[in-house]
């Protein structure tokens, strides 16, 4: 079987979703850890040091290209799967099955993903884009991202939008985390139970910590 045949089969497409999804989960761990430096109570010094390293060192900047590639692949494959899967039942049911046997968020990965995408467009144009364009997209001088956050999160609607983005991410991951490992072929009940529990913890804690960032700025906690 050629690579192209493997990754265009129904299971192969899900492998792409799963691998890019796990890659994005790993990115979230890095992102949340670095951003947690805003709570160092040092006027953003530690946070800006971290942000500076990520923006000025070649290694994270190369990884950044990989991140965008992975994200793009996940989004495009996600939408394609969603549309292809929807087209497999031309005539629907008069009485919908609804939640008999499945959770609403597991059936709404496309919608939840779209909500995350809307959030990401706003989020990237709030911070990443102004910073990188200031750098000439190479390794030029960065803007003070802590101050930028301070200003951005004074607007209530921005804070609400960020919280909504985090909630969408939480639901997306609540199904996606364990699903990704099933797609990879983990069928051992012992490990599935472990992954399930880890997934629930991850999906609640990580988006919650993210959501507390704009809240902290808005409430003047940092």
């Amino acid at each position, binding site marked *: *079987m050629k690579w192209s*045949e*493997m990754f265009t*089969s*129904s*299971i*192969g*497409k*899900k*492998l792409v979703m799963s691998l890019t999804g796990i890659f994005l989960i790993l990115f979230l761990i890095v992102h949340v850890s670095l951003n947690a430096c805003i709570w160092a109570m040092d006027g953003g010094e530690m946070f800006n040091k971290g942000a500076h390293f990520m923006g000025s060192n070649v290694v994270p900047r190369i990884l950044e290209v990989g991140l965008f590639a992975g994200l793009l692949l996940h989004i495009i494959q996600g939408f394609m*799967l969603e549309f*292809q*899967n*929807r*087209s*497999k*039942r*031309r*005539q*629907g*049911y*008069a*009485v*919908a*099955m*609804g939640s*008999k*046997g*499945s*959770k609403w968020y*597991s*059936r709404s*990965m496309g919608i939840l993903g779209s909500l995350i995408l809307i959030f990401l467009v706003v989020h990237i144009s709030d911070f990443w884009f102004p910073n990188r364009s200031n750098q000439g997209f190479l390794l030029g001088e960065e803007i003070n991202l802590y101050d930028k956050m301070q200003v951005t999160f004074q607007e209530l609607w921005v804070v609400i939008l960020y919280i909504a983005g985090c909630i969408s991410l939480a639901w997306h991951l609540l*199904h996606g985390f*364990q*699903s990704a490992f*099933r*797609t*990879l*072929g*983990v*069928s051992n*009940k012992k490990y*599935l139970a472990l992954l399930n529990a880890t997934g629930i913890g991850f999906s609640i804690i990580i988006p919650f910590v993210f959501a507390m960032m704009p809240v902290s700025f808005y409430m003047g906690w940092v």
Partner: protein
Amino acid sequence: MEHYMMNLTLKVWRQKNANDKGGFESYPVKNISSEMSFLEMIDVLNEELIRDGKDPIAFDHDCREGICGACSMYIDGRPHGPWEQNTTCQLHMRAYKDGDTITIEPWRANAFPVIKDLIVDRSAFDRIIQAGGYISVNTGNAVDANAMPVEKDKADAAFAAAACIGCGACVAACKNSSALLFVSAKVSHLALLPQGSPERKSRALNMVAQMDKEGFGACTNTGACEAVCPKGISITNIARLNAEFSLAALVSQ
């Protein structure tokens, strides 16, 4: 359980043939015993329709004891009706009470086109089996049943997967019309046994390829299939098939 009689209203999908647009028809059914099976209740209605010179409702059935997988009906928003791990033919009228309205639809999936009324064409499943759901055996005398040792755990898991009756409820329940629960049951059943090992890799690759060709969707792991499966096939089998497929694809030339 106490015996009782009931009057019901059925809303049934009627469609003359594959090209007909089709639509719902309502039928009152009277004096139905709580001890009848669901299919017997439809038999009663059909007798009446025939007596009135009308076309009886076409539906699939064969064994009427929950083992052949023919009785495909989507009843009130659930394949095989309201009971857990149950086929339509084993659903009994004590599940209903006087005055109930029951809506009956055929399985809906592009890969299962309607032939007439509630009967759909499930030959796609046969072609998936033909693509790899078999094993090679030597001709000659039958081997002694216990000649080949099989671990108890594996024998049990293989047997649980082999319980799949190919009814298609998993496809009917899935938002993607995915057939992965069915295919994973068939692949697991043989992959776990030494008898299935010669074609283990080609089986996973070929059955998945045929499944895709037939127009079933991809799996989102929602679990709706497992919830309606009359034989309790676990979605763990799907994870096993994912591994079988990926490993076979990676090592193939």
